[in-house]
């Protein structure tokens, strides 16, 4: 599954960069994509992938919403919270999770512990009691 996603990602970058859909270009792109070395890929569940990709689509408007929130109401408190990683995560899914958390402006992942915890840095409006 992730192998196909890898190839699709590379082909997307290639076609976006060249913006050329002639036969020669397609052949070159597919050739380069397949010839480039691939790391060891772990097969994740298709359902997890679809859900995370859906969360990425949701994350963009949410990021803008949070940006407006912290612009309108100043958030001055900083805290560090440990969050548990969802079970059965492959490395690429963990990367997507970290990307999602860091993408929204209120939260940044500081560190990923290999035993299944993220360290997330939050900013808040006021200190939680």
């Amino acid at each position, binding site marked *: 599954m992730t192998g196909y996603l890898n190839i699709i990602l590379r082909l997307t970058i290639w076609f976006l*960069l060249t913006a050329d859909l002639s036969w020669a270009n397609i052949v070159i792109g597919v050739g380069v994509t397949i010839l480039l070395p691939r790391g060891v890929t772990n097969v994740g569940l298709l359902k997890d992938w679809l859900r995370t990709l859906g969360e990425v689509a949701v994350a963009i408007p949410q990021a803008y919403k949070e940006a407006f929130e912290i612009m309108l109401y100043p958030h001055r408190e*900083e805290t560090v919270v440990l969050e548990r990683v*969802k079970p059965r995560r492959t490395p690429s899914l963990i990367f997507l999770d970290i*990307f999602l958390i860091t993408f929204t402006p209120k939260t940044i992942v500081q560190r990923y512990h290999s035993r299944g915890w*993220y360290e997330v840095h939050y900013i808040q409006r006021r200190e939680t009691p």
Partner: protein
Amino acid sequence: MINILSYTCIILGLVFWYWGTWPLLGRRSVLYKLHGLSVADTLGSMAIVVGLLLRIPHEWPLLVLALISLSIWNTVLGYVLAYCVTDDGTHDVGQEVGHGG
């Protein structure tokens, strides 16, 4: 119509840029400034690029690539910088255990 929309996006991006970059001059912690920079450099720049995309729709492949690389690179860079700034040791900031959703 498209022109107005594009200018709105670009000016929104500029407001984000100024708002997020201004805290750099203050004396807050690096992590706090990183939050501001993720507003400015990721979201603000994405808004500007979307504004440009509305002006020249025929060049969409490159601008979409610019959007993707902006979001991914800046986010990963924010993570790497946050990782490098904090030590491996314990934190004396209020530490609590939450449940990830």
